[in-house]
């Protein structure tokens, strides 16, 4: 991708906001992003609203609060990958010349309790429609097939909670110890409560522009969009809510999304200065190290133990605190990652600034069908 930049980002703090509607959250993030870009909603050619659960006309309902201009507003649903899908659509429109300014909004009011994921009715009635159980199965398999330990799973949570202390947009901003994680309530062994993210409320937004449009508007510090990949599952992919997978040679749509993004950007994992990945649970972050080719298969725990993925390490992962600390507003989580990466690449991340950050990656995947990776540079 050569002609797309991010001109502005906005966010509404993640967490439970019982007194606010999804319209409040989404419009807040959108206004902040537009202000950041020095643009108005009238400048926007297309708006994509990433959301899972808000129902019909959600995008239009948010746009009305922005001063509806009559430009197309399209709602996008791809489970936890919704933000990635919205970004890919927006960036592709700009790269193709069909638009010069696109607003992407991710927003969610996530109900309390278990989130569904496209399971079939027989799976639900059979007791198989429990998302954390699939993360538990993956985590148990990771522990059985690599040298990763339960203590490593705890340490992912410790790391990300450490990172979140300085993030005002995170749901949880308190440090936790390994012992606290290991003493927290078991959910699906080996995963305990503090090893799992909390589905929550929140919103984030980004204004994408062509280089020419950004220049014309005098955008300060435009961030280059080097790649936005978007892939859907193939029959051999292994991810919730599948009922089966091949015995050997099963594939990962998350890895495929990352590989496509590297190829499109013309860079490799060694060129990254920071990563925001989908730590739905502690094991998912370790598995993301593998999917994003940050380490060799089997060396996930080794990378963690080396300290490389901490704030002060050579490749900080989830310096925002990740979903483990921020919470996961399904449709907004990917744009929340982009908000963090943009802030870092601009040098505006304050106390949690990664020094010298020039290239960053974000990565999301959604139950059943969609994964996306975004690579940005300053």
């Amino acid at each position, binding site marked *: 991708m050569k002609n797309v930049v991010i001109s502005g980002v906005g966010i509404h703090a993640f967490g439970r906001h019982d007194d606010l509607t999804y319209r409040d959250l989404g419009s807040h993030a959108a206004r902040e992003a537009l202000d950041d870009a020095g643009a108005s909603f009238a400048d926007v050619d297309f708006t994509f609203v990433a959301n899972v659960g808000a129902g019909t006309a959600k995008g239009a309902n948010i746009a009305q609060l922005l001063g509806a201009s009559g430009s197309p507003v399209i709602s996008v649903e791809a489970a936890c990958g919704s933000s990635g899908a919205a970004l890919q659509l927006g960036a592709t429109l700009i790269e193709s010349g069909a638009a010069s300014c696109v607003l992407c909004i991710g927003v969610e009011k996530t109900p309390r309790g278990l989130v569904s994921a496209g399971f079939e009715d027989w799976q639900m009635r*059979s007791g198989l429609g429990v998302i954390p159980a699939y993360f538990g199965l*993956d985590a148990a398999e990771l522990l059985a097939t690599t040298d990763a330990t339960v203590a490593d799973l705890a340490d992912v949570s410790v790391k990300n909670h450490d990172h979140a202390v300085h993030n005002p947009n995170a749901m949880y901003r308190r440090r936790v110890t390994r012992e606290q994680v290991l003493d927290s309530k078991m959910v699906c062994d080996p995963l305990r409560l503090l090893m799992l993210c909390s589905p929550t409320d929140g919103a984030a937004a980004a204004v994408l522009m062509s280089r020419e449009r950004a220049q014309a508007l005098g955008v300060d510090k435009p961030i280059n969009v080097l790649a936005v990949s978007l892939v859907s599952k193939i029959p*051999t992919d292994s991810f919730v809510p599948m009922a*089966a997978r091949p015995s050997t040679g099963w594939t990962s749509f998350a890895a495929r999304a990352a590989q496509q993004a590297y190829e499109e950007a013309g860079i490799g994992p060694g060129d990254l200065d920071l990563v925001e990945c989908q730590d739905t649970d502690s094991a998912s972050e370790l598995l993301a190290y593998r999917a994003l080719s940050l380490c060799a298969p089997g060396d996930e725990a080794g990378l963690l133990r080396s300290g490389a993925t901490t704030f002060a390490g050579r490749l900080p992962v989830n310096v925002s605190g990740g979903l483990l600390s921020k919470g996961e507003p399904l449709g907004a989580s990917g744009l929340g990652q982009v908000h963090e990466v943009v802030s870092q690449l601009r040098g505006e991340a304050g106390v949690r600034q990664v020094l010298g950050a020039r290239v960053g990656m974000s990565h999301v995947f959604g139950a059943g069908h969609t994964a996306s990776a975004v690579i940005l540079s300053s």
Partner: protein
Amino acid sequence: MSADALRTSTPIDDRLFFPQPQPRAGGPVHLRISACPTCELLAFPAEPRCAQCGCPTEDRPLTDPAVVVTATTVLYASAESEIDAPYRIAVADFPAGISIYGLAGDDVDRDDLVNVVGRGLSNGEITFEFLRADR
């Protein structure tokens, strides 16, 4: 006959099982997979068309025993579940070359050899579970 009575001992989804032996709680069942004669992709539940190449598929019974590759315990069931927590689920790898996600006996763990049997649900339907072959 009431709807509840009709569902008693009714397979939870016809795509999952071969009709013989008739699925019943605690009894042996034959899971039904589909196989693509062209690209050899296996699918469960069985699908009439191959998800990879679109060719018509053939149904096959899944022969056990299988080997468990991972397992966990569900402590909090969903509202739609017809089985009360806690219960165990596992991924079992079958000789045909496909791994299936399903309920499992309380003592089932990784590397166990398991057979597939019918499992009764609270609404009377029959699903399947993996039980240790040495029990």
